[in-house]
């Protein structure tokens, strides 16, 4: 196991208690230079691990809010390289929690898989999550990530049959991302993911992170003993649209953490 994988396990221990909150931020939203501030604010609010989205022009798994945030970020000049630079800046200013980059295959492929993994690891990223890269196609990125000491997260969905679930669980070196329901980000009732969490729990020693549709503290509490982490994206990105994005992000994360 990579040390990056250890850091993720330490941040999201499989303790069986209340899941830790994993805020998602879109790099470059609302402004290209402000992402490092928002990462620090999310940590200060109590985020245990932060997901950073690198924007893509055609994000197939994103709902309307994240699509719009990504479009805005791209229009204001955000790139893969600048997103990594923001992570690096946040690290230099004391960010300690693990960072997982979430993006789509094409931006990573154009950067070069090997090159991307090396640059991400050097910037202080712990793992990557690529929603349009299913198990069958994952081999290339898996090799590059492992050579760079970067963890790889795998995704499972309610439609994933048990046999694939075992494969996905076994190949995760970061966390296992459990999609709460069929659909895109921002939609749905996360407690629908309970069945999936039950099915995958015995199959993996990696942390289980439930995502898609989590917006409220009560939902986080309801997942106690089921998930080790909950990813919250749309609600955080909405908070980042306020007049003082860092303050609102910190406040919303704190509320989700019950602080």
């Amino acid at each position: 196991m990579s040390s990056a994988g250890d850091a993720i396990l330490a941040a999201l221990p499989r303790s069986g208690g209340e899941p830790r909150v994993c805020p998602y931020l879109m790099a470059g939203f609302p402004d290209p230079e402000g992402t490092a501030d928002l990462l620090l604010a999310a940590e200060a609010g109590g985020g245990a691990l932060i997901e950073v989205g690198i924007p893509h022009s055609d994000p197939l798994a994103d709902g309307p809010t994240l699509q719009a945030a990504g479009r805005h970020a791209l229009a204001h000049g955000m790139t893969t390289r600048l997103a990594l630079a923001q992570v690096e800046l946040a690290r230099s200013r004391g960010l300690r929690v693990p960072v997982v980059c979430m993006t789509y295959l094409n931006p990573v492929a154009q950067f070069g898989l090997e090159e991307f993994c090396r640059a991400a690891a050097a910037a202080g990223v712990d793992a990557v999550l690529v929603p349009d890269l299913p198990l069958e196609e994952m081999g290339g990125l898996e090799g590059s990530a492992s050579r760079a000491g970067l963890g790889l997260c795998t995704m499972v969905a309610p439609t994933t049959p048990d046999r694939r679930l075992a494969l996905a669980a076994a190949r995760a070196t970061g966390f296992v991302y459990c999609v709460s329901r069929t659909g895109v980000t921002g939609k749905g009732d996360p407690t629908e993911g309970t069945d999936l969490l039950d099915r995958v729990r015995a199959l993996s020693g990696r942390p289980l992170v439930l995502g898609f549709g989590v917006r409220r503290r009560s939902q986080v509490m309801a997942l106690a003993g089921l998930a080790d982490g909950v990813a919250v994206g749309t609600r955080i990105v909405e908070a980042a649209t306020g007049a003082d994005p860092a303050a609102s992000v910190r406040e919303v994360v704190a509320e989700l953490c019950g602080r």
Partner: protein
Amino acid sequence: MNGPGRLIVTAPPPRGRYGEFGGSFVPETVVPALQQLEAAAVEALSDPQFLAEFYRLEAGYAGRPTPLHHARRLSERVGRPVWLKREDLLHTGAHKLNNALGQLLLAQRMGKHRIVAETGAGQHGLATATACALLGMDCIVYMGREDMRRQAVNVAKMKLLGARVEPVGDPAATLKDATSEAIRDWVTNVRGTHYVIGSAVGPHPYPWLVRTLQSVIGSEARAQMLELAGGLPEVVIASVGGGSNAIGIFAAFLADSEVQLLGVEAGGRGPEPGANGASLGLGTPGVLHGSRSYILQDRDGQVLPTHSISAGLDYPGVGPEHANLMATGRASYLALDDRQALDAFHLLTRLEGIIPALESSHAVAAALRLPAGQGPILVCLSGRGDKDLETVLGWEPS
């Protein structure tokens, strides 16, 4: 020729690969559905009952076989024989119905009764809405706002047929955005929904499935050439948006190594980024909508906007089998611009009394550029031009 041509049924390529292209790059939620679709398609395409029902609808409902027309006055102009495969005479006015009928029969067989589709020119949306009316299925069509504006008649027809037309994106949104949104709907409702993709693009098994269903064009055209022209064509030409009419007609000639295959992409307003739809000519390898092929993108892997006078060619990607046919040299591709397509549109209208779709006009324009005095040219006339009248009459060079 008696009855529709036979489908050219090949085994699906392993892992959906065409050389280094193809594959299946989609969210996990729909991976099991794609695997189910491949298995169901393989089974259906070897079931004589399924095929009989498909051919029955193609013959009695869609109007197959479509004629092969010897375009005498056009031939005189080009200086060699030109034959037109008349997909414009298919019900709903374009080749798209072959694919929609086949996929809907497959959806019925899989027990999926809610259908989603994307559309650019509206021809695929219209074909899907039509087949849904015929088979009694629910139909939702995603369409970019820009395309809804320029293809208003097709929007009205889809609504009359009972489809829900969902506007997508900002006012400039076209086929790419509609495709993304249709895929998102499918990811959300995958259990009871079948996604009818409209071209030979997307994740495996779609490029293979769409090619197989469109191969009816090629198998008919090849037999008709032998029967009516007395031999194979020297060149086969088709327009290439996602590449379904092209791969459908090429499929029958791939093994005839003496037959040249020529695909025509949208040159739009010119070669600058954002001004065309020439993915093969001007793009680079990348992943869009679930498969690896040539795409129009910037250095960071962000997909570029596109332009073509024809909505059906206004797409930044292309089917992976075409990428491989270009890589192996079996087919070649060129881009012709808005003006050249428009000139061909007017010429064919006056010379043959056939008003072609602007997409198909690109293929006619390529025939006009081939050297005189050589063997026969077969052009896939993929659709008719009624939908394009407003665009043609309102066109001003920019």
